[in-house]
């Protein structure tokens, strides 16, 4: 085991880990923003509204993440409208392609987690809100979504960990995330075991940080729950 190469690579790997964390956090936040309206549509009493996000949800849950990344990375440039748009300088970059792919992917899973959480908010709590004259929009904002977020939190933290691991695929489109950095160094040093071991350790640290963050949020948001 070549310890020296592990130590020497550490600064570069740490930088890659930061990119990985960035990918996960940014697509995580954007994914939730997309997931909320989709989950709300999924529980609508109107059938057409319920059906609206289905194509999105089935496509992104039903196809490999790698395929989705390639589609965004190689596919977007096929459209003249995209190439001519003001966003093209961003959309041609691997970084933003990865963010787009991850966002769309995680939004599909998160929408399903949220849908389940919304449906498990006891009906009586919503009825209580109706009886005091709260409008449907107000009930969403004050009762249903705040309750659903709290219920969804444990399942959602799991989704973020899955996203963290899936983010390694960003390296296939030249992104210098944690895995990308490791692969680049390996190409130079031919020490795959050392580098992947170091990268693996850093992934564990990231997962630990993410879960710790969720535990803090959960303790704060779910302090209303009876202990034990």
């Amino acid at each position, binding site marked *: 085991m070549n310890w020296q190469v592990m130590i020497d690579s550490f600064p570069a790997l740490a930088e890659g880990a930061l990119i990985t964390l960035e990918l996960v956090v940014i697509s995580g936040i954007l994914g939730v923003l997309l997931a909320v309206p989709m989950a709300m549509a999924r529980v609508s009493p109107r059938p057409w509204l319920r059906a609206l996000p289905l194509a999105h949800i089935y496509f992104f849950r039903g196809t490999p993440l790698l395929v989705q990344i390639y589609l965004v990375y190689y596919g977007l440039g096929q459209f003249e409208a995209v190439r001519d748009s003001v966003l093209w300088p961003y959309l041609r970059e691997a970084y933003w392609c990865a963010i787009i792919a991850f966002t769309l992917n995680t939004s599909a899973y998160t929408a399903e987690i949220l849908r389940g959480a919304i449906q498990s908010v*006891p009906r*009586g*709590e919503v*009825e*209580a*809100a*109706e*009886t*005091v*004259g*709260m*409008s449907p929009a*107000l009930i969403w904002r*004050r*009762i249903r979504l*705040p*309750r659903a977020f*709290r219920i969804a939190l444990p399942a959602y933290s799991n989704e973020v960990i899955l996203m963290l691991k899936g983010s390694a695929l960003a390296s296939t489109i030249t992104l210098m995330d944690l895995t990308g950095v490791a692969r680049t160094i390996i190409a130079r040093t031919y020490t795959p075991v050392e580098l992947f071991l170091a990268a693996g350790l850093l992934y564990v640290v990231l997962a630990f940080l993410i879960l710790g963050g969720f535990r803090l949020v959960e303790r704060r*948001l779910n*302090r*209303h*729950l*009876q202990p034990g």
Partner: protein
Amino acid sequence: MEQAAIELRGIKKRFGELEVIKGIDLAARRGEVIALIGTSGSGKSTLLRCINLLEAPDEGEIIFDGEALDLKRGRDGTLHAANREQITRLRAGIGFVFQNFNLWPHMTVLDNVIEAPVHVLGIPRKQALAEAETLLEKVGLAEKQRTYPAFLSGGQQQRAAIARTLAMHPAVILLDEPTSALDPELVGEVLGVIRQLAEEGRTMLIVTHEMRFARDVAHRVVFLHAGRIEEEGPPSRVFGNPRSERCRAFLATHLAEPQGESN
């Protein structure tokens, strides 16, 4: 004739093939306390829930203080509010107390109480807080303001739910078996609060199995059977000399066991 605080005309409601409410007329004068009694499944909850459209009736009219609720027939054949502004306003003026309290568990007791005054009525937060504190004191929960519902006993939760309802200054309060989910030793404290509301002259429709409470507090008792009003009258008459055989049988079983009001 004095205008009724609330009036129901020809209310009908079915769930699929099952007709649960078969045409009910009922009016409550201002300040009147009406006890709805009847066997389980006779339609008491459904009737109460039709009043503020928690349940969509199939037929009928609902009139609050002379203002008829604007109804339109939906695609499923049931009646829905035709006017969002009106139903929101009227609901804000009709309190509803549930058997299972239905407090919002992610808010403290105090936040439960000020939620609707602040966000529905637009009362300044400070004023709502002051009023909520007075109400919580009134129901004996001054010490529990900052507590989350899960940390309260059932009796405390129901009293908090009553305070939440009172914070809207409802003209009418509907109570659906407010003490049925409680341990026997907690029933008295909740009935005490409701009795106090009756003494204040509030208009209330209360579904209850507490016959002694109904006899003491209600001005009128309505016995429901299979979706119809089978018997109604002042408690002394209904309890003392029921005309209907079914009502007599119902009372025989429900008056036999002493019901739990302690104060």
